[in-house]
């Protein structure tokens, strides 16, 4: 098959890092080529080079056997390259039709909307998508928006498609539909680059896979000739265990109970609708769902960061509805916040400061007025060792830590019993592995399981179904602020969760 894209010796440097270090990459006509790597491996940088957003410091780009110099995405688009970003670039208040023809080639002066509508409908049918071009984009689900993005590119006649982590916003059913469409596109002779860090997706949809690590290409292989374990090893650079051992769950007494809980989002609309949920000691309750369906609001109401407008939050038999954060912390509630750099870490403060963000105000770390730095530093040294935080010094700024080490720092602060001693009664973990590499993810999983053994009740929010299924003892699914169902681990599977995650269920109710 003909080579659609050849990248040769691409080097892209940013101040202080080499994001792409002599990268070679080839995309053939008619293949789905997975680009696999952990966060920060350089996948997105490489694709931005191909899309004309970055100019490489060194290296050559060939598209359809011709050497090209891309000055901007406009040049790339003219060569038939299209990109679908993780966060969609659509105009929400416009219709599907308007979004698609916006930027289409050779648009006539007086736009013949009906002709375009027909063409778009026909194009969508080819891939099995039922989409009404007259709908406004804001009315669509995430999966449908992605279809619009793809249609936009296909409508321009692109035959080199780049998809950046396309499944992160999709339900399992939507993912399957997307993969089918991608296969179909490949069979039409298009080339598709599929950026991901999920191994099972690579196995499911790709023909070939290229693994990147720390800016370099480690290997390119035919997917059929490799295995998830092998790929994981290439990706991480050392052998990894994909499954972890989990002891039988021995749930104890009720530790947290939510009763008809309601709360508003930042925008002032109802984000939680009559949420009822119980968490017991020594069990992990997973909250599955596409993010943005009320999960973060739920966590924030429980920790006192957000006001409940109705209903009750009971923790360890105490009504903590709308109590302040400090009181709830003192009850023994740990919170691992989403987007840790925004919510959980002060990057310009030292590691010791960050570890004691909550405990600084309690003895023996301070008296009424003064901090006991000596005690704080001693304890920090201990915790840095215990939680394996890799740093040159406890006086280093948190900024100097990698994502995985920052998460270890947060785990150390929240779980190590700095306040009151002992394991927390309740742990609320919101997307604790998002953006982490395989090693750090493993550490988070193991740590949560360890605290389950110690008797903590754990609320585990994630959009990664694999880890939800791996860790949880019970699984609640959230959609539009409601809990659409609670499944025991035995009855739960991807299919059932996916159904509860999708709109069809909500509308049937």
């Amino acid at each position: 098959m003909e080579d659609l894209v050849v990248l040769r010796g691409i080097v892209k440097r940013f101040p202080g890092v080499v994001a792409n270090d002599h990268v070679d990459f080839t995309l053939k006509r008619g293949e789905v080529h997975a680009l696999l790597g952990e966060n920060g491996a350089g996948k997105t940088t490489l694709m931005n080079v191909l899309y004309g957003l970055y100019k490489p410091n060194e290296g050559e780009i060939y598209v359809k056997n011709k050497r090209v110099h891309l000055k901007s995405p406009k040049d790339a688009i003219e060569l038939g390259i299209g990109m679908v970003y993780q966060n969609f670039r659509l105009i929400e208040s416009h219709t599907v039709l308007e979004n698609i023809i916006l930027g289409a080639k050779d648009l006539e002066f007086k736009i013949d909307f009906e002709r375009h509508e027909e063409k778009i409908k026909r194009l969508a049918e080819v891939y099995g998508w039922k989409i009404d071009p007259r709908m406004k984009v804001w009315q669509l689900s995430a999966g449908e928006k992605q279809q619009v993005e793809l249609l936009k590119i296909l409508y321009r006649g692109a035959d080199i498609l780049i998809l950046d982590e396309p499944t992160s916003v999709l339900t399992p059913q939507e993912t399957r539909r997307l993969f089918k469409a991608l296969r179909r596109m490949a069979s039409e002779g298009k080339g598709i680059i599929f950026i991901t860090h999920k191994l099972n997706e690579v196995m499911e949809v790709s023909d070939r896979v290229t693994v990147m690590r720390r800016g370099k290409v480690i290997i390119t292989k035919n997917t059929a000739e490799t295995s998830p374990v092998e790929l994981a090893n290439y990706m991480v650079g050392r052998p990894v265990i994909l499954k972890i051992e989990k002891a039988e769950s021995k749930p104890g007494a009720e530790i947290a109970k939510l009763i008809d809980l309601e709360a508003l989002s930042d925008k002032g609309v109802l984000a939680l609708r009559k949420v009822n949920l119980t968490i017991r000691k020594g069990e992990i309750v997973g909250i599955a769902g596409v993010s943005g369906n009320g999960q973060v609001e739920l966590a924030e109401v429980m920790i006192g960061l957000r006001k409940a407008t109705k209903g009750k939050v009971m923790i360890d038999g105490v009504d903590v509805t709308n109590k302040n954060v400090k009181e709830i912390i003192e009850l023994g509630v740990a919170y691992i916040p989403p987007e840790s750099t925004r919510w959980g870490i002060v990057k310009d403060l030292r590691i010791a400061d960050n570890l004691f963000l909550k405990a600084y105000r309690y003895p023996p770390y301070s008296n009424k007025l003064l901090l006991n730095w000596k005690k704080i530093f001693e304890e920090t040294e201990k915790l840095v060792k215990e939680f394996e935080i890799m740093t040159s010094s406890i006086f280093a700024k948190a900024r100097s830590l990698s994502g995985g080490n920052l998460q270890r720092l947060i785990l150390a602060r929240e779980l190590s019993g700095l306040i009151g001693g002992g394991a927390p009664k309740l742990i609320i973990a919101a997307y604790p592995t998002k953006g982490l590499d395989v090693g750090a993810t493993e550490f988070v999983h193991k740590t949560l399981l360890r605290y389950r053994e110690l008797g903590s009740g754990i609320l585990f929010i994630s959009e990664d179904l694999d880890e939800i299924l791996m860790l949880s003892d019970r699984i609640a699914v959230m959609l539009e602020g409601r809990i659409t169902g609670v499944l025991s681990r035995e009855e739960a599977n991807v299919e059932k969760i996916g159904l509860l995650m999708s709109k069809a269920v909500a509308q049937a109710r």
Partner: protein
Amino acid sequence: MSLKIRTKFGSIKIERRLTYPRHISILTTVLAILLSFAAVAVILTLMGINAFEAFAVMARAFIVPRLLFESVKQSIPICLSALGIAIAFKMNFWNIGAEGQIYMGMIAATGVVLLHVYYGAFNEYLLLPLMTISSFLLGGVWCLITSFLKSKLNVNEILTTLMLNYVAILIVDYLIHGPWRDPKGYGFPLSIAFPNYAKFIFVLDSPAYTGLLISILAAAAVFFVMKYTKIGFEINVVGHSLNVAKYAGINVSRVIMLGSFLSGGLAGIGGLSIVSGIIGRLRPRASPGYGYTAIIVAALAGLNPWLIVVASLFFGGLLTAGESLQASMNVPKAATQMIQAIIFLFILMGEFFKRYQIIFERGGNGS
């Protein structure tokens, strides 16, 4: 974060520095001051003034003892206000109302003196300590008003602190034209002269000036509070990230109110240092804008209390130098203020080069 300018001959890139090496920071400050002198020299020459002579006159503000004392005196209100501003800025509370807090401090200090003189209240040894405490309290309350409004009603403190400056200045005007005017003062808008024990003194003609002592003590106190106390830690966290502070269960409005009280209080003592240290009585417009200069000083010193002491001495010297220039070389007042402004400007420009680096790349657009 980074800007690239392409030219025919190559490109110029402006990039944020990843680290801020100390030698670069010192070098840029020194260079900025030297360059500002060069610019001042050009302007003075254009005005027909011998620049070298002018610089010699200005340098005396830092050398001749009598003028040096004057420089130290001028630096005290700047220093105290800047220390207060540093606390506020550390928690991202943009207190630009030090000027008003200074005026409130002057009112409190003068009030105590008047109570003593007219009603015989307080022992004379207690007078200065009492004046210090009361000017701290009133300055603090003046700033507390704004932080209270911010935390209860989310009112922007930049506006309220600034507006309260004018209110404070007008209150002083009212008092001095009205109830607090010296009855034996031939109708001039002045308070009575302070008795000697209500004034700052030079010990043995050395710069061991009461004000300097207060400044250094205040700097040490700010340093200690920020580094070793719970409230200092909380101020730091609030300043770096409001989100994280809330997440950690810190009572953010309490921290902002307490911090702003300390901030205004220090500026209030700055007011005391004017009436007791420079003028010896209260008069309208007693501060020529120390509270605003203090904002620049605090920023230049990177909010570091010790550097604030040093930077205020420099700026106090510039004020004295300006006065000398007016007196001995007939340079108009406006011109001396311009000279000061040019020096400020160059130093501020220097700040840019501490944070960004400029990279020249040779070669045209090709490659």
